[in-house]
């Protein structure tokens, strides 16, 4: 068996709560909160943090897609972000939406991104400072990104299908019940179901939570390597596609594979099961 790394490939992609508390007012950083609970930021947030709503701010209001590069530039400018700003993302649900927002920022080519290890829950559990004061930053003039990096870090249906047909690594990060086709929605989210249950043929089941400790921090590099390289068959240098239901849980796994294990060519299929499970003629496996 190959020797596994003992260090994260990009340790700089994580910041710890202790470090962040000491650097709240540091020049060149912007703390960004992104949650599932849409009023959570309003109830209190890390001092200086801005709020980015994954749906209202990052998604097109009509078409199922992301905002345009022009809108992304306006969003960043509004929050005083420049291409040189290091954005530190955190949020609820063990950083699901923080990873999703980070991935969306990468879609537009913003390179300086980090995750607060443990997210909002850890920060709060450690009784670190919170405020309801909404910060105001001087508006910047973020340049309109020349392209969206869909090809590099995002997979569409046809690409996920090609991945399946060519037996390349596909990781289904949903709950086991969703993977097996026993339920057509996330536990506790029955309104967000699809017409067919199961998984993409050839996909390995590895629920997103496998990558985290109980306090929502990420597991050490060697454990992550065992999970994804040994158990999921992911290989450095090979294309990997991750998916869930709408792409938020798989953003979490995408972050683990890309930044913590340093794998290249990892793409998030954000259409995920809500596209696949509703699509006429899409092949489905239902076995365990």
């Amino acid at each position, binding site marked *: 068996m190959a020797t596994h790394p003992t260090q994260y490939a990009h340790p700089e992609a994580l910041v710890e709560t202790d470090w962040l508390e000491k650097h709240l007012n540091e020049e060149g950083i912007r703390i960004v909160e992104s949650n599932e*609970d*849409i*009023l959570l930021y*309003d*109830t209190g947030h890390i001092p200086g943090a801005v709020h980015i709503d994954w749906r209202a701010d990052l998604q097109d209001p009509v078409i199922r897609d992301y905002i345009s590069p022009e809108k992304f530039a306006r969003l960043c400018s509004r929050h005083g972000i420049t291409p040189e700003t290091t954005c530190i993302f955190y949020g609820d649900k063990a950083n699901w939406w923080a990873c999703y927002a980070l991935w969306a920022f990468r879609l537009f080519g913003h390179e300086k991104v980090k995750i607060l290890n443990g997210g909002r829950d850890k920060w709060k559990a450690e009784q670190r400072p919170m405020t309801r004061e909404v910060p105001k930053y001087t508006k910047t003039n973020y340049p309109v990104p020349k392209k969206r990096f869909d090809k590099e870090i995002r997979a569409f249906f046809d690409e996920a299908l090609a991945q399946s047909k060519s037996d390349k690594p596909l990781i289904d990060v949903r709950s086991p019940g969703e993977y097996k086709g026993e339920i057509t929605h996330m536990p506790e989210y029955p*309104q967000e179901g699809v017409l067919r249950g199961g998984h993409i043929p050839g996909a390995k089941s590895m629920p997103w939570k496998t990558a985290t400790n109980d306090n929502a921090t990420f597991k050490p590099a060697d454990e992550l390597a065992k999970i994804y390289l040994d158990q999921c068959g992911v290989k450095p240098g090979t294309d990997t596609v991750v998916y869930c239901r709408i792409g938020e849980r798989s953003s979490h796994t995408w972050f683990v594979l890309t930044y913590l294990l340093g794998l290249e060519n990892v793409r998030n299929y954000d259409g995920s099961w809500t596209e696949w499970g509703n699509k006429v003629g899409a092949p489905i496996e239902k076995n365990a």
Partner: protein
Amino acid sequence: MYPQKLNKIINLFETLPEDERRETLVSYADNAKKQEPREGENFDLVDVRKDEECMDTVGVYLHVDKDGKAQIRMTLGPEVQTLTRSMTAILCKGLEGSTPQEILDLASDFVTRIVWCAFAARRFITCSRASKAFVRFISTASAWRKSRSTAVSAVGPADILSPES
């Protein structure tokens, strides 16, 4: 159309711009604990459970006084989302003094009038979760009414303490 107290709350929300609506919703969520049962209070019906759609337990406690007016208390588990907290607190306040029949007759459109459509549409479940509090109140009132007509017979998941009091 709505009980007077609830109508006042709805009218207030409809006059507020988005940022103030958010603030007011958070303020209701902050005060949700005040709607918990107090020592010495007795209830005709207690329904505490974790619905499939909810992140955590929601408890609804109903007392109907001799004039047929409802007093409602509630408990919320720590994982219940902010909007559900807000809406549950609004319902406790807005339906205080209503009859169970008035609660059963409530039209659910007040949820979007309070939360407003643009906000609720950000995620389908947002509105659904807000409505969930309403559905629980309705089911409690319904169970109470059923208990009145069937004496102490079972009313599903709810626990009847003293149906004829």
